[in-house]
């Protein structure tokens, strides 16, 4: 579309000149019969100005476009939406370009007129597709009015949507869905075209507010079961759709697939999975909506195990629903734990989609703190939730969890994420230790060390679960690399973003964990992870926690029985720990770690401290009762 617009100041001048021209034309008189043609020419010119120019100028002067479009333009520009309204493209002769009001030339149409013309354009386009009018012209006309309608709907969503519903109703929704199908078919037939036709995107965005009406939602749901054209458009316009409607559409579609309704349509189960995939990507923008879908047993089964769904889409919706959403409230945590317990059951019978494994691995950042203290091989894992922990959800027994974690560990990317989340959990668990120890300064050093060990024990319980869950041939190299990644700045930032995304104010997609940790390793895929040695990465995390605590907090050294360690040793350790935190070079990290271990071993007090905590905190989880052999 061309750039249209007007200069308000010049339009004012034009208005004055036009009125002057009219007065001058009125003043021309002649009774001479020979001047009859001339007087007719004058009358025609007068008619042009009076009936054509002045109403148009008046519409521009009095329409809200004079103010509203300027405001809207500013808002659009700030959101990067000024695609076809680039002021700089307007040729300017003496008039500063910024004085222009940019418009598409439809300003003087009322909202009702725009809706009517859109309706008419849709019908004409559908007739053209059926072999009537010129198809290109009909599509261009449809694109113009759909674009204008979207623009008005964005600026005045509620009222314009209401107007559309009044004027178009269900018939309008059916017409829009038909036009979307026709645009999709037309686009597929034309090899010169690439991507989604803009008019189709506009129509999908206009359809979204109509979804407030139940009958329209039913129509859209039926369309999603029989066509592949709409779902990608919903993904592309996800911001316009009410999350509740998206939840209903997704669960409805999955239940229809589950009940074999596709047998009555022309689409295949794989194509319908594509629709679910697209809806999942739209849902992932809203954690609460994602959790609502995962709360539907049929939907959870389908999403978690379907091999036709793309792993990134599944990971996105699982991450949004189980990592982000449960942090919002006790009720959301209950729903998240319910979904987790359901996934434990599912993983016993079916293979999980790789996206499910990765999403679950990321969600452990939320679940580890409530899960780890309850891990006991002898009794079912029952997790308390809520502010006073007076409610519980039974997740399953230890063996069930082993099977779930076994599936997670079968995917290298999920392993990486799980390792990174374990490291983030360890950091979180030990974060307040220095304050606690300082507050109990009078206690015996043994008691103080026991506090550190207790904090590390929950982390170790997770480590023990992971080790027991691995299949015999499963390498844990990626998991251990995850520990390293867990301290990368990008992953720390990501975890902080998750914490602040409890109830996102803007529905922006949160980067999925597997991409973040993979990028943190500067790798294109997890299989390229270099082998650092099985225990090295894990040991670095442990040493950083145990040695780092008294190094960074001198006031607790005495309480931990480390008061006689020379200041020079602490200074050396402090320098090394700082260097360790700053470097992403894995070989260098290993070398620094070796030096820290050597320095600790050289001091009798430090050596005893580290050894005790390795025994109490590091191996405690493995030293107790073992799960039955039948679990593995």
């Amino acid at each position, binding site marked *: 579309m*061309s*750039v*249209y*617009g*007007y*200069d308000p100041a*010049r*339009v004012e*001048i*034009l208005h004055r*000149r*036009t009125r*002057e*021209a*009219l007065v*001058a*034309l009125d003043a*021309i008189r*002649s009774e*001479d019969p*020979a*001047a009859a*043609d*001339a007087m*007719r*020419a*004058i009358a*025609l*010119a007068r008619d*042009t*100005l009076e009936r*054509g*120019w002045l109403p*148009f100028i008046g519409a*521009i002067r009095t329409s809200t476009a004079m103010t509203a479009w300027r405001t809207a333009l500013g808002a659009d520009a700030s959101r990067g939406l000024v695609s076809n309204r680039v002021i700089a493209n*307007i*040729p*300017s*002769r*003496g*008039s500063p370009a910024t004085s222009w009001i940019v*418009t*598409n*030339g439809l300003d003087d149409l009322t909202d009702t007129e725009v809706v009517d013309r859109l309706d008419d354009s849709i019908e004409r386009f559908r007739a053209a597709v059926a072999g009537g009018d010129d198809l290109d012209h009909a599509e261009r006309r449809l694109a113009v009015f759909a674009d204008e309608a979207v623009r008005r709907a964005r600026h005045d969503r509620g009222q314009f949507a209401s107007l559309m519903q009044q004027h178009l109703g269900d018939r309008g929704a059916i017409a829009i869905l038909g036009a979307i199908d026709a645009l999709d078919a037309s686009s597929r037939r034309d090899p010169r075209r690439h991507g989604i036709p803009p008019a189709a995107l506009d129509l999908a965005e206009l359809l979204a507010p109509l979804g407030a009406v139940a009958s329209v939602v039913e129509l859209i749901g039926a369309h999603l079961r029989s066509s592949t054209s709409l779902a990608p458009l919903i993904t592309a316009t996800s911001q316009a759709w009410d999350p509740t409607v998206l939840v209903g559409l997704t669960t409805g579609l999955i239940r229809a697939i589950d009940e074999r309704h596709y047998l009555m349509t022309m689409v295949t189960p794989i194509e319908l999975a594509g629709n679910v995939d697209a809806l999942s990507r739209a849902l992932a923008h809203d954690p609460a909506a994602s959790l609502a879908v995962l709360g539907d047993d049929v939907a959870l089964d389908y999403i978690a195990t379907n091999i036709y769904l793309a792993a990134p889409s599944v990971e996105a919706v699982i991450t949004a629903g189980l990592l982000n959403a449960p942090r919002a409230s006790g009720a959301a945590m209950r729903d998240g734990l319910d979904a987790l317990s359901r996934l434990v059951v599912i993983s016993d019978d079916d293979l999980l989609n790789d996206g499910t494994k990765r999403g679950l691995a990321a969600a452990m950042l939320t679940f580890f703190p409530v899960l780890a203290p309850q891990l006991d091989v002898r009794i079912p894992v029952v997790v308390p939730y809520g502010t006073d922990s007076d409610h519980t959800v039974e997740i399953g027994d230890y063996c069930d969890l082993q099977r779930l974690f076994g599936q997670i560990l079968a995917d290298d990317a999920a392993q990486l994420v799980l390792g990174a989340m374990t490291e983030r959990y360890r950091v979180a668990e030990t974060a307040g230790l220095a304050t606690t120890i300082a507050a109990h300064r009078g206690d015996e050093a043994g008691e103080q060390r026991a506090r550190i060990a207790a904090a590390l024990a929950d982390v170790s319980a997770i480590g023990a679960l992971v080790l027991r869950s691995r299949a015999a041939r499963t390498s844990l190299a990626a998991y251990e690399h995850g520990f390293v990644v867990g301290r990368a700045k990008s992953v720390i930032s990501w975890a902080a973003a998750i914490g602040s995304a409890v109830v996102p104010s803007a529905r922006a997609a949160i980067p999925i964990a597997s991409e973040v940790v993979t990028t943190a390793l500067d790798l294109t895929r997890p299989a390229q992870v270099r082998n650092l040695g099985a225990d090295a990465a894990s040991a670095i995390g442990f040493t950083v926690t145990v040695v780092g605590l008294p190094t960074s907090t001198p006031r607790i050294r005495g309480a931990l029985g480390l008061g006689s360690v020379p200041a020079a040793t602490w200074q050396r350790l402090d320098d090394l720990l700082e260097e360790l935190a700053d470097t992403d070079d894995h070989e260098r990290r290993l070398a620094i770690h070796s030096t820290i271990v050597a320095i600790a071993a050289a001091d009798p007090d430090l050596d005893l401290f580290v050894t005790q905590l390795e025994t109490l905190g590091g191996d405690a989880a493995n030293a107790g009762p073992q799960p039955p052999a039948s679990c593995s």
Partner: protein
Amino acid sequence: MTVTTNQHASTLRARATQLRALAVELERTPAMALERFAGTDTWRSPRADVCAHELIADQTRILHAADDLRWTALRLERCATDLECELARLRALEAS
């Protein structure tokens, strides 16, 4: 007869003068320069294009009308001249 013919010729010349004045008035009326204020630096839209095209058509029509007025004025003056010549010829015949 002589007086009537003479008056008629004068009337024709007066009409020709008025028609020429009208032609000038048409050409100079502000509507004939309105396009200067309605260019693409003032507005741009399909409807603005329609306005411009209609104005051009009207201006062309007016210019043609002005030309016609001048042509008519010329014809009227020729008629007046013819009448005056005929009157002069008749006067010459009467004198002889």
